[in-house]
């Protein structure tokens, strides 16, 4: 029932915000986000105490003869993903308080709608419902970018984004249906069994369909081309939602659906996907190094980190998956932090050209410090949340292939290169004519950054609650094959 509540709160609030009009929109959205977080924490507590009252699951038949059910379950991995969503939602809403959006009730209404569908995708145990939620999340974000973007070519960018992801998802639909022909039910358990019973080459094809869908969304080279332009065009809250939560649906899908369903397909025919992920790391890191604009640099760095994520998950062992879960949470938080820094820069200087910055630390040391911690998390320094995830991912990948680990491991080295260089250009040195009037952080900006910094450090020092939460589920998933 709690899972239903998690979907119902944002859904209901979305309607309420839409109808209440512009005045209270963002306060209501924040309220919904906090309520969402409280429900998730309750669910985590119940899970921790080994609750068996059935509050964490829900299962009702929807279209019986077609084997589709409204089935939701909050197990370890789903809980971490729900935590990611419900933790970031209030932060993203609160972070957008310093922006005034036109028609805020529509904006926040769409945002809540998106949260509902993402939670749905993270908690359902029915393949059909997963597809529906996965697809539906595209609609609100599409309109958020189309309506509230300031970019000149937004129509073209959003069209590319929409078509690209839709096109990818359709491959997933074909694969899903192919397995369904054998299982006649969309329950994950049945899909796993039917998928494993397929021959190796069949699994390979089905895997290809799923991987193309997920690779577009993660994104993995060469399916990433929509991502930088979309991040660039989207309003900050939209970018945060995309990078922080929405794209995690794809890596979650890899863990939840692909790994347990197609073990032979990945083992025999899946190496190309790992190679692509590794190329993705190299390519995106290289692109990040040559970027002149901060937002694009972050966009490419995101691709690099997610390349490691995808490779680590596909290596298919406990460390890889655990690392994946941890990295999804950590990357979500860091991405929101990094894009919030962009928002702060942009609101003051109206551009994000790094070469025209410099010396901001001199003017505003507090901002520089908070930014520095986020950068450290992003380059996976030990004792930050980024380290735990990436270390486990690389450990998992090492068991699969040492060479790929070497390539993917470059993300840490190259990440340090471009992140530290960016930090140096933007923050260090002496202030120039553009930066000397850099306004101090407002109270609300400090709060948001401080929360993110605190999360990065706490999860880095003490990741155990998250890891032990997801561990039993990871073992069950691996145990099924």
């Amino acid at each position, binding site marked *: 029932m709690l899972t239903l509540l998690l979907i119902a709160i944002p859904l209901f609030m979305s309607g309420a915000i839409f109808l209440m009009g512009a005045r209270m929109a963002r306060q209501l959205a924040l309220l919904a986000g906090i309520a969402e977080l409280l429900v998730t924490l309750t669910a985590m507590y119940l899970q921790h105490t080994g609750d068996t009252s059935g509050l964490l699951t829900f299962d009702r038949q*929807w*279209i019986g*003869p077609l084997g589709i059910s409204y089935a939701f379950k909050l197990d370890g991995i789903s809980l971490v993903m729900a935590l990611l969503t419900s933790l970031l939602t209030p932060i993203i809403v609160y972070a957008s308080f310093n922006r005034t959006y036109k028609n805020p009730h529509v904006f926040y209404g769409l945002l809540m709608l998106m949260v509902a569908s993402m939670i749905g995708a993270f908690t359902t145990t029915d393949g059909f419902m997963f597809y*529906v939620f996965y697809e*539906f999340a595209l609609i609100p974000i599409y*309109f958020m970018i189309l309506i509230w973007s300031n970019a000149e070519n937004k*129509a073209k960018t959003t069209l590319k984004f929409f078509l690209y992801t*839709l096109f990818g998802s359709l491959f997933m639909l074909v694969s899903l*249906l192919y397995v*369904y022909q054998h299982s006649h039910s969309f329950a994950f358990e049945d899909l796993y069994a039917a998928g494993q019973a397929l021959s190796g080459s069949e699994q390979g094809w089905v895997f290809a369909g799923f991987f193309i869908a997920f690779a577009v969304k993660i994104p993995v080279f060469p399916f990433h081309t929509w991502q930088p332009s979309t991040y660039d065009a989207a309003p900050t809250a939209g970018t945060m939602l995309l990078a922080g939560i929405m794209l995690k649906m794809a890596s979650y899908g890899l863990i939840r659906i692909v790994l347990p369903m197609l073990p032979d397909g990945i083992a025999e025919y899946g190496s190309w996907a790992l190679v692509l992920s590794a190329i993705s790391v190299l390519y995106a890191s290289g692109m990040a190094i040559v970027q002149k604009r901060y937002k694009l640099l972050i966009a490419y760095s995101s691709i690099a980190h997610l390349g490691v994520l995808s490779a680590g998950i596909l290596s298919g062992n406990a460390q890889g998956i655990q690392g994946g879960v941890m990295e999804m949470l950590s990357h979500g938080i860091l991405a929101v932090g990094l894009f919030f820094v962009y928002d702060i820069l942009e609101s003051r200087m109206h551009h994000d050209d790094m070469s025209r910055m410099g010396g901001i630390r001199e003017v505003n040391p507090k901002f520089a410090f908070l930014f520095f911690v986020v950068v450290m998390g992003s380059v996976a320094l030990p004792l930050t949340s980024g380290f735990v995830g990436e270390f486990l991912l690389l450990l998992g990948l090492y068991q699969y292939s040492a060479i790929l680990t070497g390539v993917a491991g470059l993300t840490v080295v190259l990440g340090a290169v471009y992140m530290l260089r960016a930090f140096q250009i933007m923050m260090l040195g002496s202030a120039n004519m553009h930066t000397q009037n850099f306004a101090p952080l407002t109270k609300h900006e400090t709060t948001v950054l401080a929360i993110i910094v605190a999360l990065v450090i706490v999860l880095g020092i003490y990741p155990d609650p998250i890891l032990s939460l997801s561990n039993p589920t990871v073992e069950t998933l691996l145990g099924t094959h």
Partner: protein
Amino acid sequence: MKEILIISLLGILVLAIDLLKLRKLELPVIIGGLLSLVACSVMDWDKNEIPFAQYGGMLQFDNFALGFTIVFSVIAIGWYLITFDSYSGHASNRTDIYALSIFSLCGAVVMASYTNLVMLFLGIEILSIPLYVLAASDRKNLLSNEAGFKYFILGSLASAVLLFGIALLYGSLGTFDLNAIHEKIAAMPQYSAMMIIGTAMILVGFAFKISVAPFHMWAPDVYQGAPTVITAFMATIVKGAAFAGMYKLFVVALHPLPDAFAKAFAIMIGLTLIISNVTAVVQTSSKRLLAYSSLSHAGFMLGFIMMSENASAKYLMFYVLSYGIASLCAFAVLQHVSSIQNGDDSMTAFKGLVKRNPVMAGAMTVSLLSMAGIPPLSGFLAKYYVITNVMSGGHMTLVIVMILTSAISAYYYLKVIIAMFTPIENAGRIVVGNLQKSIYLIFTLLLVVMFFAASLLELIEM
């Protein structure tokens, strides 16, 4: 029996109303009549009534017929309510148009309930002849005249081919009755050559009517030339009726078809989907775009006919209803928008619609997304039913074509959506009546609700 009487008498009643100069009563009478048609169909459910059995019992109101009658009536009610003001301008022929459309609807009901090939032919003609007139009803418009003329010539040709096919079938089986045909075919080892030719000719006739490739050439011109309101009628009810008729003949009576027909169907579907979707991409007129989109949906619906063993009539019905509502909505918005822009139906006419009339823009957006098959809108489920059906028949290539063309279709639907959300300078508001506004809202809601209420479909026994 009540159903066929109600719909026939309603048409005559509308003509009488005009004679008595009681024009204000027109709309209430039509809506009332259609509502009673729905009510009767619901009451007769499961009764399997054969009206006028003493005259050979050529119609049968089983659940299939009643279900389609309800679907047609619901779409027709929406059609009358949403378009009634578009005839306030040239009021002289409004009654004719209403009466003709009801007669056409009568043909649709016959096509869903026939049990005899003669009745099928009559149904098709009752459906088509008023349509030829309707397509040309904008008398001063050259394009409309051209549309009516083209439709008439090619429609008659198709009817002739169909009739020839029916004759050949009768020649080899000695009966017009669907049940008798089915029994005879079941008793035969395989189709005789004459039957194959007959069936093929019937298929070609139908292919003209439902406008699937390679017999689709007339459709874009006719759809574009006819008044938008009539185009909406043709794309929804007429197409639905043709599919209902086709389902009864091909899936129920002529089953099992020779293997070659499955191939023919697959080729027709594939061609239709590719031609219509690729051509739609380059259209600048949104009306022509919707015409091509209508072709593409015909391709999808044909998937139900092709997979005769597994196809279930209620899923076809769901598709007809879902597409009907979405398409009607889109055409109605197009009609309102273009009539204000002096008949301009290019993409630019839609610019800034979200400011000029948010309700219409919202309804149009949801309809287009539903037609593109985005969950959780009913259009997704409709396409999903087709694709699962085709896939379970093992036609993977066709599934891939369906999927790819769906993605292409999203592109051109989005082009319209983007236009609506592109702001423009000094845009005046577009005003529509409260009645239309509420119809738009109801349609939008229906498209969402139908998705979630799809489980109800499983309760229906056909």
